[in-house]
């Protein structure tokens, strides 16, 4: 039971990590920018979902799309305030990273004023929490739902980026903005759309995370910010499958270092692997070798 259970634990945790990392990876793949405010958008998504359920008596399943919409719009706003002006000015990417930090501080502090600091949760009974019977391991319905949703979102995103016109435009922008705009792609529109999608993914992740762990504060994003970074680097930056693979690899590494008695050094294992991967396979686990980004 022990090993089976640890495998289940790892798969479940991997689902959580990938879900968070998807939006993070999307922005990085299209813009080549690390958006450190992503975790703040994630938190806002969770709270929008919570307000829908507690104040407007929405069902949880209805609250998720609303939260996605809300967080998507926050993403667009974030782009308009913190990224677009810098892009217009051809500012170095590092300036965009710093402005995303400023935006994150702002978003978290506004949330603190509105929602307070005490941990909040979805009402008891919003979702079934009883362990499913008759399996050789223990898992709850919400865990299965999160796994399914993250796989579905990943597939949807992948389909969008590869198969649709908008996705092609996004990839063109990612490859070379100038060429893309010469080809008639509305580059700033693509950026806006990317931020909307990333925000919506963060919103979905926020609500599901809130449901899974039942504790939401304006600071909940801090817990996943660094982990999300680790995940997208391990999987291959700017790569959507990479985010998912990275999520499962980080989770597996964490769970099995604990399972083998190394809970003290869990994060050291993860970061050492990260270090080695960067040195020997900087394109990440699934990335192809590509030109180094300038």
């Amino acid at each position, binding site marked *: 039971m022990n090993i089976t259970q640890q495998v289940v634990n790892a798969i479940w945790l991997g689902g959580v990590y990938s879900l968070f990392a998807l939006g993070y990876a999307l922005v990085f793949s299209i813009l080549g920018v690390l958006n450190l405010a992503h975790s703040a958008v994630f938190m806002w998504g969770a709270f929008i979902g919570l307000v829908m359920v507690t104040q407007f008596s929405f069902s949880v399943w209805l609250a998720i799309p609303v939260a996605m919409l809300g967080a998507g719009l926050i993403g667009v706003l974030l782009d308009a305030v913190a990224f677009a002006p*810098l892009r217009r000015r*051809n*500012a*170095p990417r590092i300036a965009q990273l*710093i402005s995303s930090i400023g935006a994150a501080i702002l978003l978290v502090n506004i949330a603190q*004023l509105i929602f307070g600091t005490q941990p909040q949760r979805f009402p008891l009974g919003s979702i079934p929490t009883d362990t499913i019977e008759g399996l050789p391991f223990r898992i709850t319905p919400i865990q299965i739902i999160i796994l399914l949703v993250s796989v579905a979102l990943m597939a949807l995103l992948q389909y969008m980026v590869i198969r649709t016109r908008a996705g092609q435009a996004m990839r063109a922008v990612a490859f070379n903005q100038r060429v893309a705009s010469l080809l008639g792609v509305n580059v700033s529109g693509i950026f806006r759309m990317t931020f909307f999608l990333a925000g919506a993914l963060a919103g979905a992740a926020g609500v599901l995370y809130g449901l899974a762990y039942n504790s939401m504060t304006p600071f909940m994003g801090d817990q996943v910010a660094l982990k999300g970074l680790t995940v997208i680097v391990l999987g291959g930056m700017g790569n959507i499958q990479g985010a998912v693979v990275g999520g499962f690899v980080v989770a597996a590494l964490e769970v099995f270092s604990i399972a083998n008695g190394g809970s003290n050094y869990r994060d050291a294992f993860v*970061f*050492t692997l990260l270090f080695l991967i*960067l*040195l020997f396979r900087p394109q990440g686990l699934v990335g192809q070798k590509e030109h180094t980004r300038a």
Partner: protein
Amino acid sequence: MEFLRSIGITEIVMQFMLINAILGLSMYLVLYTGMFSLANAGFMSIGAYTGVILTQNFNQPLWVGLIGGMVVAGVLAVPIGLPVLRLKDIYLAIATIGFGEVVRILILNFDTLAGSITGESVRLTRGALGITGIPKITETWHLLAFLVVTGFIMIRLHRSRFGRAMAAVRQDEPAAANMGINVVYTKNMVFIMSAVLAAAAGVLKAHLTRTISPGDYGFDQAVSILAFAVLGGTSTWVGPLVGGFVLTALPEILRDFKQYRGIVNGSILLLVIVYLPGGMVNPAGWSQMWARLRGKKQGDTLTTEVS
């Protein structure tokens, strides 16, 4: 002086400003050479722990602790820098964040680890509780003197061959190599200098705050150090200095805003970086903004590309 105190800048805040200016400079060195390294918080902790162990466990004076911390960080920077500095950009940033986290976890578990190897009970870094009761022996003049010497070195550096090599490596690495500049040597030397400066700031600060723990030198600290340099501006070495001053003083000056302090603080950061992407000390950026305010069209940006 009276005015500064009235807006919340007491002597201790001024001391923190000076420390953060040193940290900003340590970041500046790597950015000026085109390396996006976030290892400075890690080196700061190595310096702080070495320095404090020297002054507390071995009863050495502060200057011995200071030099000890700088030397240990400088030596450790070599095996870290050699492999890592082959990476560029965000990859380098992440690898160095990883380095910082590993350092943090090792310091956290140092006593248990050392204890299990030597078989005796070790009490050196004292785990999560950290080291407390460190005497406050760093004086303002220590910091000023250190900063003056560092500033002097910066000026000399920029005028030297090595300084021009640093700029060349940033602008175009292959071209620099073709010109006969030893790129690996330049990058590693700068990485070591940066580590040494960060370590010095760590030692000096530990003897101001009286207590250190591994959590003080995590991801947040690494990002703050980056912000000192980038917000200050990396086109001259004065920028990170100003960045360190302003970012440290701002939260104290804004105390009267009470619960809106974070919002005001975040907005100011955002406005500065959005309107002055080259940082606060960046003549080109200011003249651009001036031109825009007067409604003139401006040409290409002149801001230094650091990433």
